[in-house]
């Protein structure tokens, strides 16, 4: 094989500098590159953001108000969409916005009282419509106070944390309208997986 070089001007000398182009050209040029590099990644992130905003998400428990059910640092998987079609049930562990600061404060509590019911706390026990409520999810040694009576309207729910001595809930900030309920905790993911229906 005979290899010859230098028969014509070296092609590598061709000048491809376009740095003197207009700002519009540069904008389109740069936009095209950014678009080409990121379009699928951005679309995936947008879909994830929509799923996270409207459908399902994960939060990390801060505090001990739901102990022993949830401990500080537990990872919880929750459904934001479930109450669009169904109504919250007694025993559901819900995520709610604090009615006094719905934008910035989010709590996780358990639904104890349903709309229209009368909730009474006396002698460290909970009574619903004058019937004592068995709460197997509580530590046996935990009592509920302070005493009080609340009559719920057709849109209100009475929520409490499972760690009664260390929980700010409806006993202190009153019953919660449904519009403040943001979703239902479905399962604990970490440190061990467990469905909330078993809690």
């Amino acid at each position, binding site marked *: 094989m005979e290899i010859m070089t230098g028969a014509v001007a070296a*092609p590598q000398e061709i000048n491809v500098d376009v740095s003197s182009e207009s700002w519009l050209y540069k904008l389109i040029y740069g936009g095209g590159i950014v678009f080409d590099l990121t379009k699928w990644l951005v679309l995936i992130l947008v879909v994830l953001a929509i799923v996270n905003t409207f459908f399902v998400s994960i939060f990390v428990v801060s505090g001990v108000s739901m102990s022993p059910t949830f401990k500080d640092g537990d990872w919880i998987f929750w459904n934001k969409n479930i109450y669009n079609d169904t109504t919250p049930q007694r025993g559901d562990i819900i995520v709610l916005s604090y*009615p006094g600061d719905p934008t910035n404060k989010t709590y996780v509590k358990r639904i104890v009282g349903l709309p229209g019911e009368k909730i009474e706390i006396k002698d460290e026990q909970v009574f619903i419509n004058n019937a004592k409520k068995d709460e197997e999810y509580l530590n046996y040694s935990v009592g509920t106070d302070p005493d009080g009576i609340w009559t719920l309207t057709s849109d209100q729910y009475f929520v409490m944390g499972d760690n009664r001595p260390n929980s700010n809930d409806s006993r202190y900030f009153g019953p919660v309208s449904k519009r403040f309920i943001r979703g239902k905790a479905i399962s604990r993911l970490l440190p061990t997986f467990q469905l909330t229906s078993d809690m």
Partner: protein
Amino acid sequence: MPKKNRRKHPIVNFYWRKLAVFAFLFAVLGVGYTSVQTFSADTNKYTPPTDSADLTIALKIADDGSVIVDGQKLKQHIDTSGSSDELILPILDNAGIGYDSVHVLVTLPKSVVKSSIYEIKGIHGVDSTSVAAISDRAIDYYASGVGPDSTLSIIINMPPGTVDPPLLFKLYDAIANIKSSAWYIIALALPILTLIFMIGFITVESKQQKIDIPDKETDSPPMALPPAIAGVLYHQNVGPREIAATLIDLAERGDIYILDKERDFAFVKNKYDQRLLSYEKVLLSKIFRASIVSDSAEIEQRINNHLYSKKISLVASGIYVLSTRLGYFKTNPQRVHRKYQIIGMGAFFIGLVCFLLSMLIFTNPPYILFFWAGMMLSGLIITVTARRIPNRTTIGQEMMSNWLAFRKYLSNPEKMPFSFENQELFQKYLPYAIVLDCEVAWAKRFSEQDFVLPKWYISDELSQGLQDFCLSLFPIVSYVARSLASLKEPGFE
């Protein structure tokens, strides 16, 4: 010839430059998001005085719904999107200082105290709370024993229409009150309608530019065009086939050698003649820098140094310009692609910016996000489908018809007898077969026996039949797609 490391191409190419770009983007987005969050929290809070055990706050709700606390206008505004004009305002939140008593004296814009609902909420260490109307326009919210960690909020629900918010807030309320199902429908309809429109547009244009499918085949190219020009006439787009065919054509013309190195490719300079077209010169300058030999490892190394190659873009541009000058296209196909790409990109980026803004502005579930996501998807659909918009002139359509007649000849299943002339014919038309998507059919026309490797093709194998030759050469299309063609700049014109 120096031996280079022979390695197979990875399934996913990993480019450090691209990683750097993504890392930078994530850093900017992360810092930006954090800054916005901090800003929002700082400006929306009332800062209480720290030098008194008893705190009295004068709060006024203006006619336009803005909230003024001790002369300080807050970012928070009366929410008029619900069934009442509502204010939920955390007055104290973990302030770090306790108060014996807190009075919040609220003045309403109208005399609506009797028809309003009001309450005070205190948690995390508030002894007692009470609230009382002190006139038909004023309410006194009271809390005692407020601890340093407490959160104290006041709430008032006034009859709808009590405040008259600015137009921007009315717009916000109107958007917030649109039902979620309406947003779902809009979000789905937008990309579907865009797709239907683009398909309809392409169909109508295709019918207007109908290309006659020839009955007869012609046994020679209708015109002495470079294969890349024939390819862009056929595909209306410069892709890997056009570049690969150009490389084989250059080899056939004696400008370069193609080396088969264990199913990998390398290129060797031969003599460049004076008849090289400008885009061919640029392509050669991309492959060879200073050395005589340019193997895949060297090309890949150069690719890794670039996100995109301006030279490869210039190759594509040169092919487009030449085919347009020949009168085959109404306007440069690259310009047509660019026009729709700009429209698509614009829709995509506007959708993205509005998506991010909506996430920050709307507090309730912002269903308008579905609309912006639909807009972004529509932008992508426009950019993807725009490449298929027909753009050929009458001359281009006639020429295309002639090339289809030649393609019919190339893909004819009838075998051709072996002869030295036919061997030359095979090599000569091979670049055209590649750009016309029929190289396999063209190769099948020739007998296996007595095949002689082209002079421009050098292989490690001592002897190769036609099938081996095709198996080793035809992957050059995917090789070019993976390496050179992928470097074409998306924003380049």
